């Protein structure tokens, strides 16, 4: 598996279904049958926005993630990439 590179375009994996919840969203991957949690509304927005941006930074901008939280969000997104919830496109 290649490592996460926020300068590249990503998307939410087609096998993943997101269900909105008050804390963010539940993400279920039908191919790996793994459940994961998106623990903030901004993270959910970011994941959904990935498809329409040429890189991850654009999606973070659209979701309104403040600069001082970028690093934490990139770490979370790297984890999602590793789990296959998001993938390069």
């Amino acid at each position, binding site marked *: 598996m290649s490592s996460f590179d926020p300068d590249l375009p990503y998307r939410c994996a087609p*096998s993943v*279904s997101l*269900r909105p*919840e008050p804390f963010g969203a*539940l993400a*279920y991957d*039908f191919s790996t*049958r793994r*459940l994961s949690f998106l*623990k903030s509304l901004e993270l959910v927005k970011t994941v959904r926005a990935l498809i329409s941006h040429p890189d991850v930074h654009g999606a973070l901008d659209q979701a309104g993630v403040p600069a001082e939280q970028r690093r934490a969000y990139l770490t979370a997104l790297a984890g999602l990439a590793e789990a296959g919830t998001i993938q390069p496109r």
Partner: protein
Amino acid sequence: MKLVDQFQHGLDAPICLTWELTYACNLACVHCLSSSGRRDPRELSTAECRSVLDELQRMQVFYVNIGGGEPTVRPDFWELVDYATDRQVGVKFSTNGIKITPERARLLARSDYVDVQISIDGATAEVNDAVRGPGSYRTAVTAMGNLAEAGFRDFKLSVVMTRQNCDQLDDFAEIAERYGAQLRLTRLRPAGRGAEVWNELHPTAEQQRTLYHWLVANGERVLTGDSFFHLNALGSTPLPGLNLCGAGRVVCLIDPVGDVYACPFAIHDQFLAGNVRSPGGFAEVWRNAPLFAELRGPQSAGACGSCSAFDSCRGGCMAAKFFTGLPMDAPDPECVKGHGETALAALGPGSVPRPSGDHSRRGRGPGPVPVQIGWAPPAAGLPDRACDTSPLTGLAAAGR
């Protein structure tokens, strides 16, 4: 708010739910949670099942764990599985393997939305069949062979941990590996017919310790359905999972006649929240049942509140307490600090609740119904390991 607190207050829809499609079963396992055997004439029709699945799709329930009874003996079973997966409701169904033919296994292997869980409760036929009935080990092994042959990867091999099979942990892992399956271990609950055999079959305190360390060592590779969170007090490493009682908060059960219970281990009037046939259907029950509102509210920790381990075990399993006659704020009957043992010893006669439903087959019938629990006399030949002692051995020492 921490995620676990969020779950404590309940979700808009369950993450997954268990749906027992029928009380009919070709087996008669001594520890059956739902006291299954005979079909109930009031069971949901095909059309009613379809409308429940429509509702689950609307609520975005990711998957449903279908069980029984033996769900595959329903003539409309495969049709309902297709109906669910066509609506992006994943299905994991639990079976003893009776209908998993080579042809069926090939069909199942094609879908991402279907997962299969084969139950065995012993790594050897002797240990398994003593609990699940003669021939059941062979049926399960044949089914696993068919799935593996069809290229179905990572189906689940599901084992209820008992005093007789706790020493077979590595053997179960080996069987799972042989068939390309993932091992899933769950806790023996004193629910349904399980209430009658729990005293003899539940693991000893020493076995619980072994199990905990084995689970910690094997990490996320072994699934547990979050069933062993009561063991977390045994060490500093929490077991993988949410480690909370999800009853009515993130999970629930729909039984074959449409009754909705707080959890799969709690088929009793006490935990009955409503019925999917009533106005508003399942969603109404999930969102507004007074019982669920109560479960999502603050729970009394009782005497456990002052225990140093409370944060790791949270008082244990509601169903295990209830069916052994303990109050909801008592310690878990298998409390690793031994408090459950003490609480059980203090119970008066008649404390254990009477079951509120029983679909066991009557009499001896044609089925493999063990009339007595436990082992045949030693002369009849005992299983080669794990069972070379009386099932009562260790009972007095358990939980010390």
